[in-house]
């Protein structure tokens, strides 16, 4: 019996698995076979016959290195010339490798067989690769190499592929000549490779004996750089295989073969320290990681192997942080010791472990000092800021079931509740503990409202009072606070700050890291920014370009000595820095002739960076965020009235930038770091990436593509603007977000102002405008349905970018029809019903003596309203939009609106932040914005300490248009942010959130249904 003949006679899984009896049964068979079908012997012999001429040209004294990344029973090795080749085989089937190992034991052949998956294989410098890879399996793994066939998978970019396509790319990368059995469906893929030399078409029944009915061919590829005509042959059993015109490249086969699994290289030493017999193990640190230095290689091997133990288990699709490789990796994070009940005891146990392995631990003085400092800082970092919240009055509420239900839906063990049953609920700041028949559940208000009513109506439930939920850092560390107070007094800062501002400033300074000053608008963030800068020694205050004049005005108003501050306008201003340096984000990210950011020149030159309106840092990839990160200050303070700008997850990047990334006090990470927990010290098995843990804990998503799961920013998803585990979210946010609200007891006497009056206006359509709008709506509805059907039939997801671009045209047709953008079907010039209604409302406010700010999307709309107001109502208005230079528009706004007699300011969203416009008594939203924080910020321009009136807020919606969806979305986003930061109950008008696609579906139903019944006739009649 010749080489490997016994294993070749093993049955494949394809032969052993039961045949599929139905279409549904195919999946079972696929899972059982794992696409394992042996290559028929005549095909294997044919492949080697085709390669024989090329092999004959290799000198006889050199072994030809042959790879099969899916070796199976070794069928493809069997016909090979044993004395001329060195074989390397990999297979995921342990039984196959065991059988091959047993059969080859004691043989004269040169071989290496390994159990493993091809997605973990690194292979290079082979002469030949022969293979019959599994067809059509979905591969995913963190060690995959980036090829044209790989895609974004569960482990990040380039971590997923189809098995046969990946195998081919791997083979072409690894070997000079490749002979691959491939399905005919991959013909295009194979032919796209320039190295393709020959195609041998196999009979359709080639794999019939294996239980597979698939059309296949053998594709032979030449060496790198090969380019010639593709020879085509049809071959049958018993026929000779013609040889293609391929040959090995000279000298290429002399290189050492690389055949590594999971990056483990047997031939390279991993410990290079010489054996000296000196057992000293020096314990030091690099930032927040423990570093061990060894004097003897044997001690190093004993200690490191004992501490790290073994590889973390890699089964399944668990995605590990990049830094994690061994079970004991957690030993090296100082943060995980900080999280233990007794950090010193845990650290001593670690040192003792070193001793037990024969090491003589020598803790460096630097480490001792750093550890001591770290512990102190950790106590302060973990302490929540002083926090007032408005909570439900009373200790409990009564709920009445509106239908028969389980106490905990989905849990059959929870008690059944009949309709009308009354239960007791204890409020817990947005969540409620409900008890019934000895069982308790904790649920959000919106979840409860789907099945229960709050007895006594919502008035009782929403009757709230202010409570101090955290006394703050000063109560815990009074001595430290005292020192900061003295420093503030010495600088004279207490002369121009209100008491609550001084208290808050002291708390911010006490935190060992940066923080978020999430003070509500109108509570004095500009003064806080100046104070922080002056106390810090050397600070950089970054503001939006449009707000530089505001900040300058504040500095002059406070009579700050001009020698203490400067505005950075260019590189020259950065040569000598002052105590407080103002710079706009735009200037900070600007680049010079050498493509060098201004921020790079300021790197590590300031101790403190204050990012005004800093929620823009939520996008770590933006130029502003990168510029701020480049500064690398010791402390970064983010000042923003709406730190949760859009979705609650927006707070994570800001947390990472201010409080630390993947550390004890901020355990989540945006990068590839692990989630920091006490359990990490015991074992790193199945430890999650910080960002994955945050997503699982706090983000509400129905589904998301891998791109979105990777960074929580890019890629499609279906997300609910809600916070999961809202209590955990508050605990986390309370450590680095200092929240101060205008109405809270300590702030209200200084910064409080009357609450605004909200009024929503639903406006009917003009017939002609409706006809114009319907044309766009129907066009969109039809396009959407066709697009959905096309995507459904091709198995692809919807193109959200295209949907949003086209839906923008529908929105434009409703709100801005005189100047539509791309994808629009013509223009509609007459003034619309909504525009008339808005102008009438403006006129009412003006007549009542109320200065009015009107917000809208586009500068074209600003110009139109300005003209129409002047012509039809004789009302003069100041235009403020992004198409005018900042200095010009700010000067006119100051002169005519803020300090002048003009009663109306018409602006685009660029005027929604930073401006102090207490003179205005009315805010009109001509249209809605997608983000809750944009609208909140816009209203807040009027909510300043010197506001003496209740401000009117009017919001206009066209009946049945997308304005309605935007209203719902904004409400939910604001409620979610409120629940997370201000301990709101997260309740909204609508019990059930309607997703964008559901709303579009309904919109299309209505639009097309309307056309069928009445709208079409109306259009014709109009």
């Amino acid at each position, binding site marked *: 019996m010749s080489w490997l003949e016994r294993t070749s006679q093993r049955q494949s899984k394809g032969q052993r698995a039961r045949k599929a009896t139905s279409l549904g049964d195919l999946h079972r068979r696929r899972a059982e076979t794992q696409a394992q079908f042996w290559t028929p012997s005549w095909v294997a012999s044919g492949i080697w016959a085709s390669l024989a001429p090329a092999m004959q040209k290799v000198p006889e004294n050199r072994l030809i290195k042959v790879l099969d990344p899916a070796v199976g029973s070794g069928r493809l090795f069997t016909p090979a010339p044993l004395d001329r080749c060195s074989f390397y085989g990999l297979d995921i089937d*342990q*039984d196959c*490798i*065991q059988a*091959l*190992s*047993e059969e*080859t*034991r004691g*043989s004269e*052949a*040169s*071989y*290496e*067989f*390994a*159990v*493993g998956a091809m997605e973990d294989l690194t292979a290079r410098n082979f002469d030949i690769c022969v293979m019959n890879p599994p067809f059509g399996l979905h591969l995913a793994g963190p060690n995959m190499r980036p090829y044209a066939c790989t895609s974004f998978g569960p482990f990040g970019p380039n971590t997923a592929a189809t098995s046969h396509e990946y195998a081919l790319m791997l083979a072409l990368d690894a070997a000079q000549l490749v002979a691959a059995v491939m399905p005919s469906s991959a013909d295009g893929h194979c032919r796209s490779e320039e190295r393709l030399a020959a195609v041998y078409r196999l009979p359709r029944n080639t794999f019939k004996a294996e239980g597979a009915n698939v059309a296949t061919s053998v594709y032979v590829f030449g060496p790198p750089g090969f380019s010639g005509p593709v020879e085509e042959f049809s071959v049958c059993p018993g026929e000779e295989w013609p040889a293609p015109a391929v040959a090995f490249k000279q000298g290429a086969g002399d290189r050492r073969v690389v055949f590594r*699994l*999971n990056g*483990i290289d*047997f*031939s*390279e*030493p*991993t*410990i*290079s320290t010489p*054996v000296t017999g000196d057992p000293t193990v020096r314990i030091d640190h690099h930032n927040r990681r423990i570093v061990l230095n060894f004097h003897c*290689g*044997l001690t190093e*091997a*004993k200690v*490191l*192997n004992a501490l*790290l*133990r*073994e*590889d973390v288990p890699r089964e399944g699709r668990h995605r590990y942080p990049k830094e994690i490789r*061994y*079970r*004991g990796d957690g030993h090296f994070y100082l943060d995980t010791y900080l999280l233990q009940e007794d950090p010193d005891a845990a650290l001593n146990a670690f040192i003792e472990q070193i001793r037990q392995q024969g090491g003589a631990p020598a803790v460096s003085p630097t480490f001792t000092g750093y550890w001591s400092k770290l512990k102190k800082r950790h106590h302060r970092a973990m302490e929540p800021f002083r926090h007032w919240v408005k909570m439900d009055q009373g200790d409990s509420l009564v709920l009445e079931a509106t239908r028969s239900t389980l106490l905990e839906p989905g849990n059959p063990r929870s008690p059944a509740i009949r309709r009308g049953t009354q239960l007791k609920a204890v409020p817990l700041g947005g969540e409620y503990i409900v008890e019934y028949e000895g069982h308790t559940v904790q649920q959000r208000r919106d979840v409860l409202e789907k099945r229960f009513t709050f007895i006594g109506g919502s008035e009782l439930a929403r009757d709230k009072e202010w409570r101090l939920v955290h006394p703050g850092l000063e109560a815990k560390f009074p001595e430290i606070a005292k020192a900061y107070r003295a420093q503030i007094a010495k600088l004279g800062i207490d002369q121009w700050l209100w008491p609550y501002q001084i208290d808050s400033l002291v708390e911010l300074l006490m935190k060992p890291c940066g923080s978020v000053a999430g003070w509500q608008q109108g509570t004095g963030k500009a003064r806080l920014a100046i104070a922080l800068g002056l106390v810090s020694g050397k600070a950089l205050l970054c503001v939006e370009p449009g707000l530089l004049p505001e900040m300058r005005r504040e500095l002059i108003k406070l009579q700050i000595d001009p020698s203490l501050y400067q505005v950075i306008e260019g590189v020259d201003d950065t040569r000598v820095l002052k105590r407080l340096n103002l710079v706009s984000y735009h200037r900070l990210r600007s680049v010079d002739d050498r493509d060098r950011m201004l921020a790079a020149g300021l790197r590590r030159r300031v101790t403190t960076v204050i990012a005004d309106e800093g929620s823009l840092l939520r996008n770590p990839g933006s130029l502003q965020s990168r510029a701020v990160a480049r500064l690398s200050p010791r402390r970064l303070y983010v000042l923003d009235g709406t730190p949760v700008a859009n979705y609650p997850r927006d707070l994570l990047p800001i947390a990472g930038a201010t409080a630390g990334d993947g550390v004890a006090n901020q355990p989540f990470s945006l990068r590839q770091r692990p989630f920091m927990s006490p359990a990490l010290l015991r074992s790193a098995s199945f430890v999650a990436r910080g960002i994955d843990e945050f997503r699982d804990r706090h983000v509400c998503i129905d589904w998301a593509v891998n791109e979105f799961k990777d960074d929580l920013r890019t890629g499609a998803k279906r997300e609910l603007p809600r916070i999961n585990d809202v209590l955990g979210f508050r605990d986390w946010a309370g450590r680095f977000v200092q929240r101060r609200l205008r109405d809270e007891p300590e702030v209200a006497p200084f910064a409080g102002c009357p609450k605004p009056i909200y009024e929503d206006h639903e406006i009917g359509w003009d017939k002609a405008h409706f006809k114009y709008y319907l044309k766009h709506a129907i066009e969109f509805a039809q396009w959407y349905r066709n697009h959905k059907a096309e995507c459904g039939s091709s198995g692809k997801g919807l193109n959200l970018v295209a949907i949003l671009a086209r839906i923008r045209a529908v929105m434009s047709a409703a709100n801005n029809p005189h100047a539509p953008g791309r994808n629009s079907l013509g223009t509609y010039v007459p003034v619309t019903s909504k525009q008339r209604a808005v102008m009438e409302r403006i006129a009412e406010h003006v007549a009542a003596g109320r200065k009015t700010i009107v917000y809208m999307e586009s500068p074209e709309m600003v110009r139109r309203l300005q003209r129409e107001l002047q012509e039809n109502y004789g009302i003069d208005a100041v235009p403020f939009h992004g198409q005018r230079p900042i200095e010009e528009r700010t000067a006119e706004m100051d002169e005519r609106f803020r300090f002048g007699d003009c009663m109306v300011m018409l602006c685009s969203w660029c005027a929604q932040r930073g401006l102090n416009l207490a003179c205005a008594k009315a805010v009109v939203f001509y249209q809605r914005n997608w983000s809750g924080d944009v609208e909140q910020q816009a209203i807040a321009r009027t909510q300043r300490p010197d506001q003496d009136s209740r401000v009117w807020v009017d919001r206009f919606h066209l009946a049945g248009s997308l304005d309605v969806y935007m209203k719902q979305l904004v409400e939910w986003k604001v409620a979610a942010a409120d629940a997370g930061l201000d301990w709101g109950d997260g309740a909204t008008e609508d019990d059930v959130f309607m997703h964008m696609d559901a709303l579009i579906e309904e919109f299309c139903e209505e639009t097309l249904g309307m056309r069928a019944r009445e709208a079409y006739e109306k259009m014709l009649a109009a």
Partner: protein
Amino acid sequence: MGAASKPVRVQLDENQTQATVRIDGISRPIIAPVLGVEPANTSEPQRIYLASRIHDGQPHKYTGWDLTGAVSTIMTRLPSAADGDQS
């Protein structure tokens, strides 16, 4: 499926500075520098500390010598190891 059994044999050079390891499934011997050898005593079996990692982390059941370790391989003699395997 149970873990497959994989025979391992090792030979040390005279100075005990280099190990020649033969693992089932690989025809060529693996040559690895030796950091130290702990002789067997009543409570502990014989151990060889290598400077390389020569095991793959798969759940093999070894015979002769057990291969463990995170950063480098620790060979621990199993009771069934043939006497002549290691000198």
